[in-house]
């Protein structure tokens, strides 16, 4: 059984069909990328898989269980955790506080225990602090862990966003454009980071624009255009796919003059 199965997913906004009857599966331990030109429906598909948007039709199964339609925090509890585009972190907290808070799902103490600082709650916080420091170190953020997030440069923020997601102990990590706005060098580091995450046994599903990074990192690729799946395969297969080439060349025509 596939770890994650997307079955006939459709999402309409009024008359616009943003995602049209898309199906694919994600196997445990792989890195699967969803690519497509601007407006292909990648972001919508991403939000529906993470349950931040309900599907109009179709469903998403995680380990055989339906997760589409559940509230986002319940999906996170099951082990499907998303990141956000750009630099969505808790800006008024330090990097360490960001990741400590993100250990929420591992909390054993109840609300009253937390309020009265029960032994269990104190133990929890000690564990979370150690684990948060470890996560930050592993993503190269160890030296800025006491910095307020809004003081951190962009590249760090993207990594911090991933650190926050990692604290929730995902089984499937959904990355929303992890390489957007990065230069070649930064992208290289980010690619290494995603490989490192997979090496820990976490399945990665990412939505991305940057073709070259996707080609290097993915085990398999799903290509969307105008909301529909137009191709699926290994990077080598995708590179040769006529429909994909057409979709992307068409896009280049449109962007001439930019």
């Amino acid at each position: 059984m596939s770890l994650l199965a997307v079955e006939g997913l459709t999402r309409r906004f009024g008359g616009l069909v943003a995602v049209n009857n898309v199906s694919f599966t994600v196997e445990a331990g792989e890195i699967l990328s969803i690519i497509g030109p601007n407006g292909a429906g990648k972001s919508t598909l991403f939000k529906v898989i993470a349950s931040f948007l309900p599907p109009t039709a179709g469903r998403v199964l995680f380990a055989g269980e339906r997760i589409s339609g559940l509230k986002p925090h319940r999906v996170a509890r099951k082990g499907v955790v998303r990141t956000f585009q750009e630099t969505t972190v808790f800006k008024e907290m330090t990097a360490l506080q960001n990741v400590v808070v993100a250990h929420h799902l591992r909390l054993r103490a109840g609300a009253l225990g937390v309020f009265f600082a029960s032994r269990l709650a104190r133990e929890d916080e000690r564990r979370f602090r150690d684990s948060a420091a470890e996560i930050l170190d592993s993503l190269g953020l160890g030296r800025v862990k006491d910095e307020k997030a809004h003081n951190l440069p962009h590249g760090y923020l993207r990594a911090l966003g991933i650190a926050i997601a990692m604290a929730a102990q995902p089984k499937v990590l959904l990355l929303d454009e992890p390489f957007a706005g990065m230069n070649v060098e930064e992208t290289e580091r980010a690619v290494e980071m995603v490989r490192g995450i997979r090496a820990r046994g976490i399945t990665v599903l990412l939505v991305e624009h940057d073709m070259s990074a996707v080609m290097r990192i993915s085990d398999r690729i799903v290509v969307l255009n105008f909301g529909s799946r137009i191709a699926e395969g290994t990077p080598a297969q995708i590179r040769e796919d006529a429909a994909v080439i057409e979709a992307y060349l068409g896009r280049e025509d449109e962007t001439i003059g930019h």
Partner: protein
Amino acid sequence: MSMQSLPTPEAQRTGPRRVRFPGIGAGHAALLLALAVVLVGVLPVALSGRPYWLNVLTNAAVLSFVSLGVWVIFAIGRVNIAQGAFAMIGGYTTAILSTRYGVPFWVCLPLSAVSAGLVGALIGWPILRLKGVYFAMVTLSLTEAVRLAFLNGGEVTNGASGIVNVPRPAGIDSPLAFYLFAAVLLLLGLLGVLRLATSRLGWIFRSMRQNEELAASIGIDVSHYRVLAFSLCCALGGIGGSFFAVFHQNIYPASYSVQDSINFMLYCFLGGLDYVLGPVVGAFVLVIGFELLGELQEYQSLLYGILMIACMLVLPNGILSLWPGRRDTAKAEDGA
């Protein structure tokens, strides 16, 4: 992304700082102790022959207490302009239970917290989905709606005549006794809210204020904690209302107007939203300031208004932002 090669200068300057959730820090404990000494030790002695000023301080203390609730809801990023309504619910709970059923005050007090908290949870569940000015407007109209409900409550609330002759609590019958009761109430409220703000609950609330979607993505049940914060807020209002019902020995639908709800919010703004002590400082400054301006007779409200505007213009982050270095060291955000 291994970017260790690029440590920011700030990182080297600040050095390691502990993130602490459990207990309240030494700084906060010292602050509470100092406040306790002043409120319970110094002020009653200094004002022993002046019941008028004791009453003013009693008012200020309980108004601060009620505003602490508004501060809690600010912590999750919502502006509550309905706190007067919840004080009214608490006040009527105490008034009705004690005059009709002879329930002792010390039982009415927690029941008032429960009734206001429950109503808050019921109303909060649907309306807390709103944000910003939309939530604020709904709560504003809530104050008026609750006033009308009590006005038209028939025999239960006795309409516009309200409920009078609410019995005083056993053992509390002088201005000094009421003052001490109010001071203790405020200290306990402050201790509770400080603990809340420095505990993980406070961090969960803060994470929701900073980004609800991100909070949900790490498994925080946002709607659950929103309702929790709101009903805590309302319960504090209910306790304050219960106190005022026995302090004034009466309650009317006119006891709490929209203006009162706005005041509770203003105390937080004026004191400083970043500080747990903000509503307390705001309430004491405004309440005492209003009394001091009493000499000016008809110009009292005018000057009061001008001072308030000036205060907001000069100190947009609240009075407490004057405190040097406080923003980074002692504010609750850092859990120091």
